[in-house]
């Protein structure tokens, strides 16, 4: 039987997946589950309007990142901040600040072959995906946010219930 079949049942997101979070190294790529952080979905008509409410600078161009905040769309940002960081809720303001810290997990794909492993299911040209860039995209049928931290480190944000599938799909890709 193949290795894939040998996985009795894909581990459950959250607690069970954390048990598997030790680094896997073969073909020069390590997968790690990142520790929880303070994550927010931020919405406003302009970067300026948002910046004024949350008291932090935010990037204005889609795909750019700045101090832990990525611009995902013309009116959408993702804040990925140290655990415990609070943001003003913007009550009464034309903004939307929503805590999504528990919504998903981040799988860290690290190593010289990181882009190759991700290319097994991500249709973007990752050779041309600049360091410091972030975007929402897909890995096969699963929506992810890809955040390139360095030449050899990609962070993959994924909703909790899709994480086990993605984790094992990345492991399968890494194994080839």
């Amino acid at each position: 039987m193949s290795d894939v079949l040998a996985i009795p049942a894909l581990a459950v997101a959250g607690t069970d997946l954390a048990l598997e979070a030790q680094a896997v190294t073969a073909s020069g790529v390590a997968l790690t589950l990142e520790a929880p952080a303070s994550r927010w979905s931020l919405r406003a008509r302009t970067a300026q309007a948002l910046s004024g409410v949350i008291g932090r600078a935010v990037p204005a161009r889609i795909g750019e990142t700045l101090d832990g905040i990525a611009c995902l769309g013309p009116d959408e940002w993702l804040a990925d901040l140290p655990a415990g960081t609070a943001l003003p809720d913007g009550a009464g303001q034309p903004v939307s600040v929503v805590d999504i810290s528990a919504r998903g997990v981040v799988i860290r794909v690290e190593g010289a072959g990181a882009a190759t492993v991700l290319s097994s299911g991500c249709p973007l040209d990752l050779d041309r995906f600049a360091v410091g860039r972030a975007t929402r995209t897909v890995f096969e049928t699963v929506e992810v946010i890809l955040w390139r931290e360095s030449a050899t480190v990609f962070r993959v944000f994924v909703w909790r219930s899709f994480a086990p599938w993605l984790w094992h799909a990345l492991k399968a890709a890494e194994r080839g």
Partner: protein
Amino acid sequence: MSGYRLPAGGRVNRAAPLDFTFDGRAHSGFAGDSLASALVASGQMLFGRSFKYHRPRGILGMGTEEPNALVTVDRGGAGPGWGRRTPNLRAPSVPLYQGLTAQSQNRYPSLKFDLGAVNDRLGAFFPAGFYNKTFMWPRSAWEKLYEPAIRRMAGLGASPTERDPDHYDATYAHCEVLVVGGGLAGIDAALAAAADGGRVILIDEQDELGGGALSDQALWGEVADKTMALRRLGNVMVLTRTTAFGYYHQNFVGAVEQLTDHLAPAQASGARERLWRIRAGEVILAQGAIERPLVFDGNDVPGVMLSSAGRALAVRYGVAVGRAVAVMAVHDSGWRDALALKAAGVNVVAVIDLRGEVAADLVAAVRGAGIAVHLGHAVTQVAGRHGVSGVTFAPGGTGQGQQLAVDALLMAGGWTPTVHLWSHAKGSLRWDDTWGAYLPDVAQENCRAVGAGAGAWDMGAGLALGTLPGPKPIWQTKAFVDFQNDVKARDIDLAVREGMRSIEHIKRYTTNGMATDQGKTSNLNGLQIASGSLSKPVTDIGLTTFRPPYTPQTFGALMGHHKDALFQPIRKTVIDGWADARGAVFENVAQWRRARYFPQGGEDMHAAVARECLAVRQQVGMFDASTLGKIEVVGPDAAEFLNRMYTNPWKALAPGRCRYGLLLREDGFITDDGVSARLAPDRFHLTTTTGGAARVLAMMEDYLQTEWSDLDVWLTSTTEQWAVIAVQGPLARAVIAPLVEGIDLAPGAFPHMAIREGTICGVPTRLFRVSFTGELGYEVNVPAEHGRMVWEAIHASGQAHGITPYGTETMHVLRAEKGYVIVGQDTDGTLTPDDAGMAWAVGTKKPDFVGKRSLARPDMSAPGRKQLVGLLTEDPQEVLEEGAQIVADPDQPVPMTMLGHVTSSYHSATLGRSIAMAVIADGRARDGQVIHVPMPGRTIRARVSASTVFYDPQGSRLDV
């Protein structure tokens, strides 16, 4: 009578012998052989039986074009029920390995003696369109009699029935230049492209680069040097054993790389195949050309093959195709092949050419090599059935015949540039008289063709014929055009005589060029024959469409990672593991897996659900509701937005209160529902059905972005932010009270349909007081990472109160007892709020909401609409089947008038009887009437109840 291994030569490694079996018989070959070359070397000329007539067939070509020699390769399994058996592999494309096990196909009981060959004797009765014409009547016999019989007799190899133990890889790749085809033209193109510094991918289907040059020893050095040069370049990726099967929009090319099938199973590890999804800036097609067979009586006898195949066998594999070989040519390439074979040590006895004149240097060279030359002649007959024993040839094909004792005949019918991928990408073609073939003309993509595939190859001169001239009329010959589909020249002629004019019709009527072969060897000959029969130039006949895949590919390769445990994501909640450990039975809901019930001590579903239901009604139960869709709606215009989306009013809802929302599509039909809470003037916590979460969010985004973009409000999916634990039953408050802080749970302070924020077990909660059971109930929302901990704490706290975990089946029964609908089960996309008995949820005073205008259409309030009602069977223990049809009079003639169908049906332990809901025409007006549910062998009587509420109609149990 057969082929043999030449004493020297070829690219095989004679120091590395390999053993293999074919139809159970042991053979041996060398490393570097293909299955076909090794079999020919051991004297095997018979490879299979043809598709329709079961005629004995040998190999025709030595490449991808091979239509005859289809074999099944068995690579062994991984235990009982597992297997690696691949049918329909082309023997010339199967690399030999130690222990290879192959079988011939489409024969019974054996390859040499095949019962199906009776079809060949009866061939006159199986003309083109035979099946269409004959098996039309009686209609009922098709399914039971004709089709199974035909399927047994005709067809290619058998599909494997065992499970596939292999796994498959897939990847995307991006490059500036993709070169398809690794012959010298492709190699040169890749080298030139690489000089520009961009990423270059070169793919080739064979196990080594070189393509046609591998059959020309003079070019081996050049191939080796340039291959080395390519491998040294950092920006070039060379993929061998990789077939580009399809060329799609904007230079997107699909290819499959074989990773292990060329290795002995014991040596194979890792994925079997890899799907490459390549996006290229420019595509260079260097696919080469395929030689055309000649069409004449007996051209399919094993031992008659393409001239290029005889040459590849001799030069590349060191195999003589026969002891005495003749060449039938209408093209110069056959003469060159004769010389190459002779040089390799093959006994070529004659070159026959229909042309009266051939370049003098070729004639002189061939004569000089001791080969007889017969200009202006054509082969008219081939002796032998399982192998060639001689040929007859005659001047002009019609004159006095003379016989020649040979055991192999090579056909040089000219060349067809391979334009399949070019055509996939909608590139146009132009007719070229020199080639007698279509060549690439204008590309639609950033693509160009090079080498023989583009007509850029010195291929000499020749004729482009439909059939060789012969002594017999076409309808008396067995002259094959499409070897794989068993289409003869006379079939095409018959199709034309029966009125087919378009080549697309001729193709479908005769099956010429269809199926896996995609007309690689038959296309041009078929066109030429149709042209002759129609007395029209070839260019007026049209050209059939080439479609992907270029060659057949495995399902596994196309699925990539999506197999077995990775077939698709199975979404699990954070509480799933707890339920799993307690032996819960699960069901799939959308992509989620949900606990359906929690059997104890050998309970079946009926017993478990009855126990769970009674526990909720009498004490308290807990339920994992985390899969409910959730959307956080935030912004100053949040209430205005929801007011426009939902049927009921939202603006006046006070913070801290909840409301049931009914969502229609613009056509007025129910599409979703859910209870939502106002957390603050500008912040709502919406819930949707489990299956509707993504759809509802997309629908709301659509209205927000494209219709009401002036509203300051934003939507964020929080489905997975929150774990949701429903605690339901008269003791619910007592269970959670010790765990909750910062929230006054007293009924006056926290009434039904309210929300409070505080903490539970020390973590933040959005605590809803809502009920989908009709009992006092709470839905505890906590950040997902704490869900399991809070679930276990509630379970522990509930022990003193007899708390019972319950699943979706119990939830369904409890809500049905209360008449609460499940959108998508009790509604089906054709029910209005009134049809569903929920007119109360429609804010008729609102000027507008999504779907309102449609509700005013006359049909939406016309009599006869199906309405959701309750059903009680006369026998209280009878549980109706969901989906069962309902009639007023069971004695009416068939087909009966159906009034509607059962949507929900359960045994209710609380009520001690069955309950059901149904949609029935004018259902509410039938209150108290008996309707009938016809079932196989009997009819069930049930009484209509206009109300769907079976339990606690006053709702007094909620308000405690």
